[in-house]
């Protein structure tokens, strides 16, 4: 279980998180939705131990991570896989080397076992044919898939997704969505997704939290969003309409 209690984060005079609390149960897919620039990625970075909140506590399986040692943080991070925005693949490595990297670094397996595991996860994301290509030879969607395989290779308990479909065309976004659903159904990985993509939210979320003004204001079930009878769905629709109003466009 992951729990954040009363988190505050500021960048100078810009107060991003203002007493945010959230709790994520195991095997659930929790989606945090909100408009761009609201602080979703900041929250995700805090939960992953990449950013220290100014105030507040974060617990991962009962272990407090904001004041822990660097060694302990590395150990805790082995429980978490993360798909960063744009994938963040290593440019100088092939698809195979990117996915094998954490296993090679931690020297956890023999060469044969590493090959087998990399093959397995590249098959899961349907990228086994492209193992010798470099990231610059891949499309945006393919990069996300490889990054997803790399995030899963250490078999984490938790998988964090930072805007997994942003910047992708609808078909590539659909592929990434189906990967997330496949992982959820087949591997029962606990997932935390931050996104401003309401369609993604509808398809993959068990629970959806709406982030407004540095806090989670509403939490709803996925089926409520899917039925389009929810506060969160209304919020997104109203937000779009307001933008059209402000710009004076007729819809």
């Amino acid at each position: 279980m992951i729990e954040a209690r009363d988190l505050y984060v500021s960048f100078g005079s810009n107060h991003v998180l203002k007493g945010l609390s959230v709790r994520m149960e195991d095997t659930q897919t929790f989606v945090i939705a909100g408009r761009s620039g609201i602080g979703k990625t900041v929250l995700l970075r805090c939960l992953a131990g990449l950013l220290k909140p100014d105030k507040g506590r974060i617990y991962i399986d009962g272990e407090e991570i904001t004041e822990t040692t660097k060694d302990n943080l590395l150990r805790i991070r082995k429980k978490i896989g993360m798909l960063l925005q744009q994938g963040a693949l290593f440019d100088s490595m092939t698809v195979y080397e990117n996915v094998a990297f954490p296993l090679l670094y931690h020297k956890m397996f023999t060469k044969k076992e590493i090959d087998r595991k990399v093959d397995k996860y590249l098959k899961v994301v349907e990228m086994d044919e492209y193992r010798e290509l470099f990231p610059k030879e891949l499309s945006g969607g393919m990069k996300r898939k490889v990054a997803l395989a790399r995030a899963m290779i250490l078999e984490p308990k938790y998988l964090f997704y930072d805007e997994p479909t942003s910047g992708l065309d609808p078909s590539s976004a659909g592929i990434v969505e189906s990967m997330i659903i496949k992982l959820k159904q087949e591997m029962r990985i606990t997932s935390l997704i931050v996104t401003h993509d309401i369609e993604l939210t509808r398809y993959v979320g068990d629970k959806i939290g709406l982030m407004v003004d540095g806090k989670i204001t509403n939490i709803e079930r996925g089926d409520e969003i899917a039925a389009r009878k929810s506060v969160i769905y209304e919020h997104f629709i109203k937000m779009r309409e307001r933008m059209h109003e402000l710009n004076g466009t007729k819809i």
Partner: protein
Amino acid sequence: MEYTQQESKSEGGHLARSVFHTYLNFFYWVVRPPFPLREIFFQFIRTMLEAFVTIFVGSVVMGMFIAWIGGWYGSLYGALSYIGPAATFGIIHEFTIMLVGMLYACRIGTAFTVEIGSMAMSGQLDAQRMMAVEPVQYIIIPRVIASVISILFLLGIAHGVAIVSTMVFLRLWFNISPEVIFENAFVFLKSAVLNQSFIRIAIMGFFVSLNACALGYYFSGGAIELGRTATKSIVINFIVVLIIDLLTGMFMAIFL
């Protein structure tokens, strides 16, 4: 958790803190396993290959410069027999150390800053952290250790090339035979001078590479900021090379 720019109010403060934190992190992680032997080897080969041509050309030009000054004034004052000892002493005691330090800062230091900075910009450092790989161990420590080793070899090459270049251009421009140059060339050179030159360059290699890595590691921003950071890397390391050269030169002259 990592130090981030949000903790500093000014750019100068951020610069000082990022360098300070990188030094702390370096010594914290260098004694912890796994020791990145394979990466050190790759970085050693890479720095040797990338810096070799720059330092070779720089040493040839420096030899030309010493040959011109030495030959011109040696001929003017009838002091040709002093050219050899003065040139070799100057080259090994001072000139090549400064030259290699500065060229290394330009060629390799800047490459480290931009490379690590773009990794930070594209999220590759965060990706490593999320795979329980400490970037200081995987990225910074190999580059710094490899730099300290490779800069020793590069200095040895620079010593040799600069002396040969001086000799060749004295012959070409002033028709001074190599026998005259080498007659007393190494009279003032003790092994301690040679050893001290290697100690001084190793210190420079350490600070230059660690500063360059620090600037890239704590980089935040876009392409314009990365360009500015690369410039900062050169300027800071130039000053650092001058300061280290002065301090180590003074220390070794007084105490050794």
